[in-house]
């Protein structure tokens, strides 16, 4: 299938991009990796009048650690995360996700920030960003603001990025020695949207109690969802089998998926529980926590 006609505006700087957005308003859409947008355009579900291509903005393609966080620029592709030694060594949750987004070829074009901005209810990055307590840097005419991922993900395919604004960067706080995480996902085959997904990041205190916990589920509602009750249960407790079970049970309680060819509501809600539990166990194993009571 073939997209409808549009005007193409490659931009070489963020200011150029903002100017283009200001000029064309809601007719314009940002083109980054294009791995969700271009198929949507081929099916003619998306018909932007103007595409503002930010790929030429060289300075947006970066991946570095600074100010206690991993900074991923809007031009950085999933594959860069997947191949990064820094990420593999220090950001287990993020590297888990980078290996399972879409398919290995799509990951060579798709971007992390683009994925967050697309905010597909079954997308991977939003789930990980919630558990990893990420922040997004957004710039507009008014200036630059930093938005917590919880505020950023507004609704299906809708984010806090306002008309005329551009998301520049996502920041994953650098996990400490006693912090690790895991991403668990059920997909029917590589490249499919998640049937269910769960992300977990835990920080243990010196005595082995959980001092911080991020728990989120995907494909379980209009957008990636933080399992607040699970986090409350976990924080301040020592990990035990029944603690993990009751935390996982909270995921099933709040999971609100839509039935589709991937499965019915009951199955998907049960999987939210199973995957949270598996992610918790995998995380504790990575933190070298022995047999649970």
């Amino acid at each position, binding site marked *: 299938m073939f997209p409808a006609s549009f005007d193409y505006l490659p931009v070489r700087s963020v200011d150029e991009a903002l100017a283009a957005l200001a000029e064309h308003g809601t007719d314009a859409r940002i083109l980054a990796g294009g791995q969700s947008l271009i198929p949507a355009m081929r099916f003619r579900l998306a018909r932007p009048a103007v595409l503002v291509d930010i790929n030429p903005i060289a300075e947006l393609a970066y991946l570095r650690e600074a100010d206690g966080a991993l900074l991923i620029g809007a031009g950085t592709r999933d594959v860069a995360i997947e191949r990064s030694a820094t990420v593999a060594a220090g950001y287990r949750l993020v590297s888990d996700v980078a290996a399972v987004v879409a398919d290995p070829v799509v990951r060579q074009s798709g971007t992390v920030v683009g994925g967050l901005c*697309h905010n597909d209810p079954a997308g991977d990055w939003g789930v990980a960003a919630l558990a990893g307590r990420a922040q997004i840097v957004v710039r507009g005419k008014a200036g630059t603001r930093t938005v917590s991922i919880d505020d950023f993900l507004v609704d299906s395919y809708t984010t806090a990025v306002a008309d005329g604004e551009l998301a520049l960067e996502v920041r994953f706080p650098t996990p400490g020695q006693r912090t690790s995480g895991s991403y668990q996902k059920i997909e029917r085959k590589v490249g499919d949207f998640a049937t269910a997904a769960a992300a977990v990041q835990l920080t243990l205190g010196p005595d082995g109690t959980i001092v911080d916990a991020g728990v989120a589920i995907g494909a379980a509602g209009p957008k990636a969802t933080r399992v607040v009750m699970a986090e409350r249960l976990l924080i301040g407790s020592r990990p035990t089998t029944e603690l993990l079970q009751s935390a996982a049970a909270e995921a099933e309680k709040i999971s609100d998926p839509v039935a589709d060819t991937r499965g019915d509501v009951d199955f998907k809600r049960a999987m939210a529980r199973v995957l949270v539990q598996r992610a918790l166990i995998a995380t504790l194993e990575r933190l070298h926590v022995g047999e649970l009571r």
Partner: protein
Amino acid sequence: MNLAWKGQEQVSARKDVVWAFINDPDSISQCLPDLLEAKMIDAHSFDATVSVAVGPVRGKFKFKVALEPQSDQSHMNLKISGGGLGSVVDLLAGADVTDNGDATTTLDWSGTASMRGPVATIGGRVLDAQAERVIGSTFANVKARLAGAG
């Protein structure tokens, strides 16, 4: 794909005012969200073009809207059928109109949608939200426009 929702609006206007309002194609058309164009056909129907914009899905939907009032003035049905993006959407919105006896009126509305074509299968998750919005905001707008109309 079939979808269903329901909701309630408390309208601060007398029932006869509300009833007159929702029986008027011109007034109702102004309550459709993202209305681009409305063309009155007759006393009970009009053609409307609304813009759809959810995430990647952006386009125009053309609807034929028919008002089907119940003779006892207790219930109004809105048949909204049409489509765009190579697909078909049939919305059926119904509202029970109840006089609260205090110069206010309750609209208990419910809506169902059935979609066919590429959008139903590819953009289904997107259109779900959109169809709900069309029906939900229509009644919300009725409330808004009648606020304090006496």
